[in-house]
């Protein structure tokens, strides 16, 4: 694999305001040598996809604690595919019950990280799976 910098969009879809996790992940990815763009709060799936395409990112990492993940995460994956950006690695994290994870994986979310995940695990996952 070439030593090209990995570009990540850390995004907060929906109306949830909990951004502690998103900001911690953003900093940890940056400290691991990646280029990180943070979307800020209250992004619609359309806005996230537009930013991902415009910034030509390799990874979209979404964080959501409001319970709207089943609605919003797959929508982002679907819109990315429609934009021809289906090589982008789409991940999710937050308060997400284990029982929802299979559904999310079937719908374009490569991996889901739940509370207590060390940031190093997320870094390694990206390094090993980015396309």
């Amino acid at each position, binding site marked *: 694999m070439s030593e090209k910098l990995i570009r990540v969009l850390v995004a907060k879809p*929906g*109306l949830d305001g*909990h951004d502690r996790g998103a900001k911690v992940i*953003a900093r*940890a990815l940056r400290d691991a040598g990646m280029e990180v763009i943070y*979307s800020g709060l209250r992004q619609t799936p359309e806005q996230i996809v537009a930013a991902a395409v415009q910034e030509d990112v390799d990874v979209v990492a979404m964080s959501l604690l*409001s319970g709207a993940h089943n609605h919003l995460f797959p929508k982002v994956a679907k819109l990315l595919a429609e934009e021809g950006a289906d090589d982008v690695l789409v991940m999710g994290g937050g308060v997400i*019950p284990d029982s929802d994870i299979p559904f999310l994986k079937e719908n374009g979310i490569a991996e889901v990280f739940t*509370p*207590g995940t060390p940031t190093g695990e997320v870094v390694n996952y990206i390094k090993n799976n980015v396309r």
Partner: protein
Amino acid sequence: MYDKEKLKEIALAKEEWEKGQVAKTLAKFKERKEEFATTSGIPVERLYTPVENQDFDYVRDLGMPGQYPYTRGVQPTMYRGRFWTMRQYAGFATAEDSNKRYRYLLDQGQTGLSVAFDLPTQIGYDSDAEIAQGEIGKVGVAIDSLQDMEVLFDQIPLDKVSTSMTINAPASVLLAMYIAVAEKQGVTVDKLQGTIQNDILKEYAARGTYIYPPGPSMRLITNIFEFCSKNVPNWNTISISGYHIREAGSTAAQEVAFTLADGIAYVDAAIKAGLDVDGFAGRLSFFFNSHNDLLEEVAKFRAARRMWAKIMRERFGAKNPRSWMLRFHTQTGGSTLTAQQPENNIVRVAIQTLAAVLGGTQSLHTNSKDEALALPSEESVRIALRTQQIVAYESGVCDTVDPLAGSYYVESLTNEIEKKAMEYIEKIDTMGGATKAIEQGYIQKEIADSSYAYQKEVEANERIVVGMNKFQVEEKPIEGLLRVDPSVGEAQVKKLKALKESRDNLAVKTKLSTLREAAKTDANLMPFILDAIRVYASEGEVCDVLREIFGEYRPVEIL
């Protein structure tokens, strides 16, 4: 307060002890760490004695409970009179579902209500808004109009129960709905008791449910102060919140500092709007977090009380003792809960409950063990409430006022928290106050720095979280989590559509345009909002009118 000769004697004894016995022990057994510190980074000594507290002055620093500077509590008899209000934050799905949960909690011995609204309601969107899809009824109850509010409080007499509502940007709209429900129940507004959160500054800094820019938001807040001081005298018009600042990752000292800095900004704004400080200050209330570092938390609550008393009396010249009192609600720390071995959370919550009670809280919400995974189930909510009841009825800590006062360590920590928090407040003052500090991203950056530092400590195993980075076990996914049915969204949209067809739409239009005109002047908007709500204008319609005139807030994002 201490006798000089006696202090010398103690200092000498301590020195001898350190050089002798302690040194001998250390030579054989090292301590667990080179340096000990609280979560706020306050160094913790091996031993506290009167020497570390030599400037202690009982009357100046503590006083009597119910007296300035209120370090020991705001009431003279505290929990010997009555326990704190046990108030579980609840709400999900539809008004019907939440009404059922409230009546269950009241039946279980809960003594006050605390309403959680879903995110669209908190951000002023009706359930049929595109941006609301997927969020309806998820983190709280969906309320679109007075009609939903009538269902929410069905068979709950509003003159008997006190109700806290976690609502900020659209606080005036939900307060108007509550007043309108009371009117329908035949309860006069002067009988209403409760709290609206109404604290926009921490929304910009830490929680995220803002709508309008700071200027008009502060106006809406001072409008409520003024309206309630004349019409709803027993209503707490704001709950100045450190809870979410702490959840976002601040330390205990930062929690106190940024909360009181926000408090100062609200008092400044109200005085600038022409209100008399003693006319509104007695209805200001506060909301803090309670974490696991038990004694630092107790010190935090005591320091906050003493600081606010000084700020109100010395800085703002308030004369009424009620204006000096920091009355607060506490919630145990959501971010301290682990998804791993969720039963362990019951123990954490018990420690945090004890901290809040030993810190003199006026009301308390205890988190449920499953909240790192989902909204709490009925069973786990019951355990959380029982935790409070056990501390109240069985622990004995409620039988005397402020039992930890005079502890050399606790008094020393109380001073240290005050010192650290005061340094922040002075810094924020030089920046032009909390609003400016938030607009520049200063407070957000301080919080994010602390949160990241904490995370790094956990990952380096310098800070142990039991069950998460030590003492792990293999676990099966837990069952019985509460799930909100996605059909709630559709049902809510249908209900709203039916309402819009059946209500007097001409009256709605008229009231909304009167509100629009009033928003352009400097009139108090509360009566206009109330008029629109009474004719069943929806929350989204009212907020949209104000969006038109006030615009929307766009934050600066600082990593």
